[in-house]
């Protein structure tokens, strides 16, 4: 009798403890999403068919999207995503685009009419300017997502390769 009672009390006690533990140690948000978001290139370009890197990370975590939809991340990025998800890496889906060298946007300032359309399109606030005043790209903040190209009514935005870093060692 005592043995049964003891087992019952122990069982109930531990159940309560486990229950509380899930509340005490609960994590806000999905840690997998954080990890996936951290390895994505944060270009916010939308080539993966999601409105930004975090929504894409959320979709991968839910199993809605494949890991091969991010062209700016390229092969290395797919490998990193595969490691986190514990799946085999797969080649980049050509429907999303191809891996290209890093670029930044450059506004040809003589042609700019100051319409602010590119400012509204830029996902990382990397374009400065005001209505009817010339706009310019803040180069270090530009991710080369190309989202400002299409809205420009006078086609005055060009993509140029990221300026080469100083080589410390002769190649």
């Amino acid at each position, binding site marked *: 009798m005592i043995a049964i009672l003891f087992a019952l009390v122990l069982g109930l006690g531990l159940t309560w403890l486990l229950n509380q533990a899930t509340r005490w140690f609960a994590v806000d948000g999905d840690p997998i999403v954080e990890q996936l978001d951290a390895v994505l290139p*944060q270009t916010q370009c939308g080539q993966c068919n999601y409105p930004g890197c975090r929504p894409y990370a959320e979709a991968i975590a839910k199993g809605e999207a494949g890991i091969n939809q991010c062209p700016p991340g390229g092969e290395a990025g797919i490998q990193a995503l595969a490691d986190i998800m514990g799946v085999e890496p797969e080649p980049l889906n050509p429907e999303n685009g191809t891996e290209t060298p890093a670029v930044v946007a450059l506004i040809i300032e003589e042609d700019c009419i100051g319409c602010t359309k590119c400012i509204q399109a830029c996902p990382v*606030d990397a374009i400065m300017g005001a209505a009817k005043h010339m706009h310019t790209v803040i180069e270090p903040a530009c991710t080369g997502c190309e989202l400002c190209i299409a809205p420009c009514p006078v086609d005055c935005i060009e993509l140029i390769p990221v300026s080469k870093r*100083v080589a*410390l060692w002769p190649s």
Partner: protein
Amino acid sequence: MAVLKTLDHSLNGGLWLDGHKAISLIQGIQNWPTPSQVMLPLLDKNGARRALVSVGERVKAGQCVAICDGIAGSALHAPYAGTVRQITTLPNAQMVIDMHLSPSSEPCTLLEASTLLQRIDAAGIVGMGGAGFATARKLGQPVETLIINAAECEPYITCDEALLREYAAEVVEGAKLAQTAVGAKRLIIGIENNKTEAIEALKQHDGFELIAVPPKYPSGGERQLIELLLGVRLSPGQRPVEQGLAVINVHTAYAINNANDGRPLTQRVVTITGSAVATPANYWLPIGLPVKVVLNTLGIAANARVRLGGAMMGRPTDPNLAVIGKTSNCLLIETPVDSTPVSPCIRCGVCEPVCPEGLLPAQMHFATQPFARDMLERYHLSACIECACCDHVCPSAIPLAMQFGLAKQQLNTLKQAERSAQRAGERHSAREARLERLAAEKKARMEAKKAALKKRTAK
């Protein structure tokens, strides 16, 4: 009269190397004939410069021709009067101001700046021992102890020793100016104990501590010298200023003295030595002198192998592209010999006891081939000072220091990309939050207006 204190303990690791120094010290510092052309590079590892002159412009000797907007870079000055021929890009993607020199009787342009630090900045002084970091920036942070690094430990290089033999008074004066600039209580000159003539020259002056260290390579490494002189071991990645220390090179101290008199940094002492050089010596070379002009003037065969720097840390250089820079302390020119073929690592471990930073070069070698980031970080790749002691003892002749240099660069590029991705992510979420807030504010405004309208119509 300074009193010499001699240390009897040497650094951990490192190598006792044959110095090959006496041959280039037989003669004093030689003057170099005025060249007909200099090429002043607009880019170095500490930042890109902006040219202040245009093509065809007449430039006076000592005139500032380019400035650096970054914090670590330095200004450039014309060593002689001349005309800017072109601003061009060399085949190695280096942009230069190509100047055609013409003799002029006009005096050298003097610097206009009120404080010592401003003069050092305007003179374009950088760490001339190799780092090339802007000295004005280094001396802008107050420290307790200032060390003058006269421990020129690398084989073949003798420019600092030659400078001390002939210009000890100027070097000491520059060191004291630097001491005033940083407000240091202690001024220590650390020198190797085999530089007897230089030590004698320094003993004639006072106002500093003179400490001689054993001539073991790399005692003159900044971190190594600090540990030898003060017993302070900097942790990996820690800068001397965090321990209240600053280290400057002998030639930098000399340049500071010049800058105080208003003279910009336009020339430096360079050791020209090696088996292909008939009479090795130290020369005053103008900054921007093309290396091929040096080879032509000295009549050296075109197939000679040129290293910019000493036998250990010097870099193999294409003489047709290289120019003398502010950190070029030595031109080591050797007749080509068949180099030992590289064989695979046999894990013998001889590289490990010689590493002055206590790293494991063999393990790091495996982590660079192929590049394995987590392994390299675990083995503290970034602490490698690229002294090439491991190369020197490697029985397989593996160019370890070069591999580590490349891997460090690759690691830095990756970290840089990560940092900018993180910044982009932050900017994106800040934008999302702002758009949301604006939409909410707009909605609230509309509702308030509607409510006000309703109130009015109800009346």
